[in-house]
Structure formats: structure tokens, C-alpha cells
């Protein structure tokens, strides 16, 4: 009996902890810089985007192409599949100033762009 009570207490504590983590996540996402980006025919538009340093960044990417693409950036630690004609939201953690390249993994040589953090 007492063991099951204890375990239920532990479970509810864990749930509370998890919820508070999720809640702070939602609150923090609001202060992020939002950038619009689109993709078509192996080209990003615009090919270069910029954002302030040390704030989280949210990239809203619309894939206007007829094929799926995979948005990837090794330096930003992002990898996301975006279906043909679909929108995607990409969360990027706060970055130091610098130039961060991204590309469509399926067309790595040609389909490239960069995020400049200032």
C-alpha cells in the first residue's frame, strides 16, 4: 500500500516537473527572432538571412518545391525533413556571432544558404 502511494507521489512530482519545463519552454519561445524563408528549384529565398546574437531563432521555412527537401545545418545542429509544399518551423538555439551555412541535404552542392548572426 505505502509503496504504491509513494510511487504515485513520485509520479505526480515528475509530471509537475515535466509540465514546468514545458511551460518555461513556451514562455521562452516568444522572445525568439523569427525569420521567413522559402525554398524552390534548389534555391533558398533569401539566400542569406541574419539574426541578432544570443537570442533563440525561429526559421519559418516554406518548401514551394514539388519534392521533399531536408533542411540541414551542421554548425546550427539542425536537420529537418520538409515535405513538398509544406511549411516547417525550425528552432535554433541562441548563437554566437558568425556565419552559419545551411543547405538542402538532397542537393548539398547547389542548394545552399547562410545565416549571419551579428
Amino acid at each position, binding site marked *: 500500500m505505502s509503496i504504491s502511494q509513494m510511487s504515485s507521489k513520485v509520479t505526480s512530482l515528475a509530471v509537475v516537473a515535466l509540465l514546468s519545463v514545458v511551460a*518555461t*519552454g513556451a514562455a521562452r519561445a516568444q522572445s525568439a527572432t523569427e525569420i521567413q524563408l522559402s525554398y524552390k528549384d534548389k534555391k533558398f529565398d533569401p539566400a542569406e538571412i541574419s539574426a541578432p546574437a544570443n537570442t533563440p531563432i525561429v526559421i519559418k521555412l516554406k518548401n514551394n518545391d514539388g*519534392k521533399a527537401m531536408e533542411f540541414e545545418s551542421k554548425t546550427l545542429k539542425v536537420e*529537418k525533413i520538409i515535405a513538398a509544399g509544406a511549411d516547417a518551423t525550425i*528552432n535554433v538555439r541562441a548563437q554566437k556571432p558568425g556565419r552559419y551555412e545551411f543547405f538542402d541535404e*538532397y542537393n*548539398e552542392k547547389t542548394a545552399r544558404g547562410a545565416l549571419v548572426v551579428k
Partner: protein
Amino acid sequence: MIASLIIVFREVFEAGLIVGIVLAVTRTVAQRNLWIGGGVLAGVLAACVVAAFAGALSNLFAGMGQEVFNAFILIIAVVMLTWHNVWMARHGKELAGELRAAGQAVVEGSKSLFALAVVVGVAVLREGSEVVLFLYGVIAGGDSGVGVAIGGFLGLLLGVMVCLLTYLGLVRIPTRALFAATTVLIALLAAGMAAQAAAFLERANWVTALDNVVWDSGWLLSDSSLLGKALHTLIGYTDQPTVMQLTVYLAILLITFVLMRLYGAPAQATAPARR
């Protein structure tokens, strides 16, 4: 053709490593080929399903469906790997010893095989859905389908080679040492996957606590280089871990160690020997 070879190889590389390890781990277990083959097949089928519904999946959880899905299947793999290690700590001797052929051991062994088949399935599913989408895009686009298909096939073949080399490398270790080696290997694999799951939840903004980067070793070994990627799969190496990822990593190692101690060796087997 070269481009598609590289893309496909990059995706199957990780799955190849994991399948190779699982094959070596289950070397002495009867019927393992059936289970692991089943895991690979289920992974391929699931990859096709995921690829077909990629758009719908992305839209779940406010656009974070992919991240949450990846984290979820990684967590399943972590649970299965940890459970396997704990289970092997208890039953490993019976399996390796003279009981190997006994009916009971085979029945018991299939429980652990199920866990590992799930792990293999998850590994194939994760990498496979990207390959399916890529190849589908190429076929739908109609540009030089034959060259791409050949490249993709060669990439797949290279991935199978990675799997074979991992397996052949591991089975050179004598059986007794193999058990200890694979226990460590699987614990690190599980810890690395758990840290990866944490990274996905961070990207989805589900987890934001402890998000400071602990170190940046990208100048030394980038985790997107081939060696970095291999270490990423095997021991969870990443060149910019957050405090949360590191905490999760260490926690899984600690949990595995404690569980193996608690549920591992049956008490009566060791007690009389200590005097």
C-alpha cells in the same frame, strides 16, 4: 550518381553500425537471424510509412512532430537496450554456458531478442525514412533515375559492408570478453541515444532547462565528419553538448549500472563463494 551514393551511405551508415553490434551481441543466441532480419524488415516498412506521411507528421505538436517522434522512438530504443543489458546480467551465463541448447534458454533468449529487434527496427526506421524520401523525390522528379538508383544501391551496399565489418571486428573478441565488451558498448549506445533524444526535445522547445553548451570541440573533431559520426552513433559523441544532454547521458549510464547491480547476478550464486 556519386551524390546519391553519398547521401544513401550517410544514412545507412549509422543503422549499419547498430545492426553489426546487435549481431555480435546475439552471436550465441539461437534464432537470432530471424529476429534481427524481422527487425530490419519492420524498420524498412515503417520507414516507408513515415516517409509517406512526412508532411502530416511534421504538423503534429505545433510543427514539432518530427522532433518529438524522433525523441520518442529513441527513448524506446534506450529502454530496450538498457533492459537487454540488465537481462543479460542475469541470464548471460546461462546463454553462453551449457544451457544454451536447452529449451528454456531459447524461450528466455527470445525475450531479449525481441528487445534488440526493436532497437534494430528503430535504427533502420530513423535513417530509412530519409532515404525513401530522397529516392522518391528523385524518381518523381525524373532526372537521371538510373544513375541515382545505381548510386543509391551502391550506398546501401557500402552500409551493409559497415555492418559486416562491425560484426566481424567484434566477433574476433573471445566469447567471455565479448560479453563484457558488448555490455559497455550497449550502455554507451543507450546513453548516446538518450542524449540525442534530449537534443530533439530541445529543438522542439519541449526541454529548455540546462541548455548551456558545455564545450565546443568542433575544432578537434566535428560530429559531422565520418569518424565523428561513427563516435556519435557508438558513444553519443557530439561537439557541442548542452548541460541537459550531458546530464541525461550520465544518468543513463548510472541507471544501467545500478539496475545491473540490483537485478543482475542471482544472490545465491555469489553469496557462498564469499567467505
